């Protein structure tokens, strides 16, 4: 029988809150594994045990657990009866593949059952000796071995595991409040969402679309990106805001070179209003310093000035390459690069303002009936829960 062990991360440092974090973590694991089959999820001493029932699959469950935030390390373990004969036999069988290539190893033993006849060092020595005999090419090494075999004696069974793989890291879903992500169809915004979800933030998302300028496919692409994100963050409520009127008004009444910045200011205003209604305490965007005209320092300052709540820009200090690496990792890249026009590309000015001054921006903005535009946009929001 094989089980999965999940080592809890930072949350072990949270003192009195630890129980709550652990419970939330187990809840997420249970929820994510539910479509796969029946699993018993329990915890003890900052370790979560996932035991498949009946013929629930282990490989797929492992892949799902690799994406759960709040876990630093994850390993598979074989379970057997608590006697040395079973332990030795199982370790030889279970670890034959793991120990086939490496040349150095060590055995670490732990027992929570103090009645067990051997002490931890004795267990390590016996198992170590047995494995060395069975696999003579592999020698014991105490410092920095290639493989660390872990033998754990608990209340009812013994657990033997080989490889330990890194978990997703971060903090458990829902442990850090809720934020509103501005989700375009690009590479950056899904990555920004992932990074905040990693710190435990629940996410809502807002997307602006402008039919007939933007297509149905562009909208579906965004929903598809939200789906990829939800694998890591949990459920996301996506709010699709009709933005056509705003864009045509800006085009008709304002200087072309200010169009992008005016649009962004209105987007932030709308996002903030929806965020308030959804009890989100922060906005999240994929802005990175200097990537495009609207993301110069001056532009960000001007955009920020309409916000009353914090705006988290987790990508602000990252290079495009680094962002793309994460985008690929979360399986969003191929979707992000699908070439559908989104509202940011439709009316790009020839010479966009890269260092806009707030007084000139406000002057341009005064030509618009902002209140009415906001009200109209908010009236026709479409909510889709992913």
């Amino acid at each position, binding site marked *: 029988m094989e089980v999965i062990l999940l080592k809890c991360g930072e949350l072990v440092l949270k003192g009195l809150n630890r129980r709550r974090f652990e419970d939330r973590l187990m809840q997420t694991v249970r929820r994510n594994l539910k479509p796969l089959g029946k699993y018993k999820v329990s915890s003890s001493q900052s370790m979560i045990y996932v035991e498949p029932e009946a013929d629930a699959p282990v490989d797929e469950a492992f892949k799902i657990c690799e994406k759960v935030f709040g876990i630093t390390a994850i390993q598979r373990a074989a379970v057997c009866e608590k006697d040395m004969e079973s332990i030795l036999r199982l370790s030889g069988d279970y670890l034959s593949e793991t120990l086939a290539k490496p040349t150095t190893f060590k055995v670490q033993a732990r027992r929570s059952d103090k009645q067990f006849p051997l002490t931890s060092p004795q267990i390590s020595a016996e198992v170590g000796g047995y494995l060395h005999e069975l696999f003579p090419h592999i020698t014991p090494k105490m410092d920095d071995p290639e493989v660390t075999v872990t033998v754990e004696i608990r209340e009812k069974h013994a657990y033997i595991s080989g490889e330990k793989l890194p978990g997703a890291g971060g903090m458990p879903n829902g442990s850090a409040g809720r934020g509103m992500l501005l989700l375009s169809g690009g590479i950056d915004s899904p990555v920004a969402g992932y990074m905040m979800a990693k710190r435990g933030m629940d996410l809502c998302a807002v997307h602006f679309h402008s039919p007939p300028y933007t297509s149905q496919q562009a909208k579906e692409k965004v929903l598809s990106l939200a789906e990829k994100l939800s694998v890591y963050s949990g459920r996301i409520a996506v709010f699709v805001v009709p933005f056509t009127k705003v864009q045509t008004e800006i085009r008709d009444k304002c200087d072309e070179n200010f169009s992008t910045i005016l649009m962004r200011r209105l987007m932030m205003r709308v996002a903030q209003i929806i965020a308030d209604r959804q009890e989100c305490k922060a906005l999240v965007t994929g802005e990175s310093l200097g990537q495009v005209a609207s993301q110069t320092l001056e532009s960000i300052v001007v955009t920020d000035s309409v916000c009353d709540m914090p705006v988290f820009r987790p990508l602000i200090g990252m290079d495009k390459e680094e962002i793309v690496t994460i985008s690929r990792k979360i399986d969003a890249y191929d979707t992000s690069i699908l070439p559908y026009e989104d509202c940011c*590309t439709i009316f790009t000015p020839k010479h966009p303002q890269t260092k806009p001054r707030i007084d000139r921006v406000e002057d341009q903005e005064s030509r618009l009936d902002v209140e009415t535009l906001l009200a109209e946009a908010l009236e026709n929001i479409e909510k889709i829960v992913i």
Partner: protein
Amino acid sequence: MGMRSGTEAMPAIAAFGAACKYRLQHGAGDVRTLAQLRDKTVQLLMYSSVPCKINTAAGASPHIVNISPQKGRSEVYIRALEEEGIYVSGGSACSRGKRSHVLAAMKIDMRAVESSLRISFVPENVETQAEAFVKALERAYNLF
């Protein structure tokens, strides 16, 4: 030996052969018809309310013309025309979905590349269709 192994696309080759045979029989007449149609379309565009550049050079194949309206983006035009039952393409044939490197190499400026449309004709097309296309383009141009 200058050879490489591979599996040729036999059905496609046979189909191409059949198509060539058919066209050879109707060939010369077709070229004339297409050229006339193309020229008519260009003329209608010149007199329409859509300021646009013709990217196709004189003496080019008679069945295609590539244009760049002064404003707008290919994808939006394509969809707007689609709604009226007119199907054209954007950019150039070799760059589906991406900005055409061919047009860019022709030193056409960025905005013209992004609004470019490629209209292909068959001998079965008629002048009234060219007129309908131009009218629809005028309507679509008003979006921008």
